[in-house]
């Protein structure tokens, strides 16, 4: 990865970043890990073009892009990097396995202002963890080392929304971390990197589902999770009036 001022090279593209505005190198952190995957860019999802967001949008309240890719095991991996109202950097990686795999969905969200970094990190299980303890052990418990390391970062707090708490794994973390302390900033970046790196490792090791009934259940649960996110996503709700329904629908399509 070569850093060219406000741009980084990722796969065959040059992506604008916002480090020169004083924001942390979160896109660089994401891309460094994702660069190890064989990502194929996609322009349509569920029969709808997402080219507008892939090419990047520039509106008074929202500047940035959503780049969506696929791999042999993932139906989509979306990288988002946007500036809201010229003062908030929002960056995210959301990865959803394709119907042959049961590994959890990856959700990493980073929202940064001059004083605070808001984070959400989780692996959203595609199984009922009560009935499938082995799933938790295989895909989620490896996160314990990182969850334990970062759970007491200043500003960590329970998520406010019941709809999201019901989807989350036992290793979900979220909070608003103050930027005053260099250690907090470094730890926030490491948290993102550790969750992403481990998920990529789990993805590499994942085997396809062989049982048809199980596959059907995983698919149904994934569809339900997607529906819940699309109906409730708070970021989309707050942006709706600023950028309009067309952009929001596309944004949700890219993300979930």
């Amino acid at each position, binding site marked *: 990865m070569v850093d060219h001022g406000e741009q980084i090279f990722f796969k065959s593209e040059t992506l604008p970043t916002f480090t020169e505005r004083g924001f942390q190198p979160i896109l660089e952190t994401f891309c460094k890990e994702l660069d190890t995957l064989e990502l194929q860019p996609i322009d349509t999802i569920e029969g709808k073009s997402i080219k507008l967001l892939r090419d990047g949008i520039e509106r008074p309240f929202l500047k940035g892009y959503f780049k969506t890719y696929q791999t042999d095991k993932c139906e989509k991996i979306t990288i988002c990097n946007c500036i809201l109202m010229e003062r908030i950097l929002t960056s995210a990686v959301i990865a959803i396995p394709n119907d042959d795999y049961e590994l959890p969905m990856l959700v990493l969200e980073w929202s940064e202002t001059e004083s605070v970094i808001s984070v959400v990190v989780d692996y959203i299980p595609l199984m009922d963890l*009560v009935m499938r*303890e082995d799933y938790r052990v295989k895909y989620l418990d490896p996160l314990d080392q990182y969850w334990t390391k970062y*759970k007491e970062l200043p500003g960590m707090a329970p998520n406010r929304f019941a709809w999201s708490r019901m989807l989350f794994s036992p*290793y979900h973390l979220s909070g608003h971390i103050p930027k005053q302390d260099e250690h907090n900033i470094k730890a926030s970046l490491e948290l993102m990197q550790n969750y992403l790196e481990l998920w990529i490792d789990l993805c590499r090791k994942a085997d396809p589902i062989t049982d048809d009934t199980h596959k059907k259940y995983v698919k149904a649960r994934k569809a*339900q999770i997607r529906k819940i996110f699309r109906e409730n996503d708070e970021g989309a709700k707050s942006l709706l009036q600023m950028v309009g329904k067309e952009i929001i629908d596309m944004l949700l399509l890219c993300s979930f």
Partner: protein
Amino acid sequence: MSKLKLDMNVELPALEEFQPVQLPEACWKILRDCDFEPLEEFEGINIAENREKVKEKMKDMDSSMVMNYFQSEKIEKLCLGWTVIMKSIVVTMFSGWPRDNYDFPAMPMDMAESEKHVYIGADLVPLTDIVINDWYREKYLDGFEPLYKQYLDLLDPTPNPMHWFRAISSPYVISGRPEAGSDRAVVKRASDCFVAYLKYWLEEIVAKAEPMKDPAHKEYVNKRKAKIRDEFRRKDPGGPPLGDDFG
């Protein structure tokens, strides 16, 4: 004597370091006039005999315990009790489990009070996968939202450290260990939360619950209930002897 024809010892003793909140008494006031019967045997275990064994074990640990078990048409096992551990911690425990023909959430709760801290764990554990079955969440859980929000200050900033517990919990779990404070107002708030969850569960959930009709759903619910119970029995840090009673 209550409608249950039981006199439960609900008076927590004063300890040297603090005067505990009388939480068992507050719970008993709600339960004593409910249409319950004493439970004498569960899963082949004679409760009276087991209670004596537990009491003996507790004595060896310089501790004491009072536990009472009930049942009703809809509830297969309801447990209310308290224990004083080494004359310095008072733990009040409550758990309620539906009979096999009902799918309403189980309710495990405990509150531990010491001189410096109070721990509260209160939840209503769903007996289905609430991601797939959103009707279950709407029917049984969403009504808890106002109560949950009322007691958010009791939550720890980071969730309960036990991953198995977090995997079982509902979105409305209250789990926290705030400082008791010099006026012990936080302890009173934790006790109020415990009582409010219990009251809502009995009056809004259990009272309105209808038997399951779909055999496949019933089979799944009972499997899930058994899994949850097994997790508590194997992993609850109260362990034996408390774990035995919580089951």
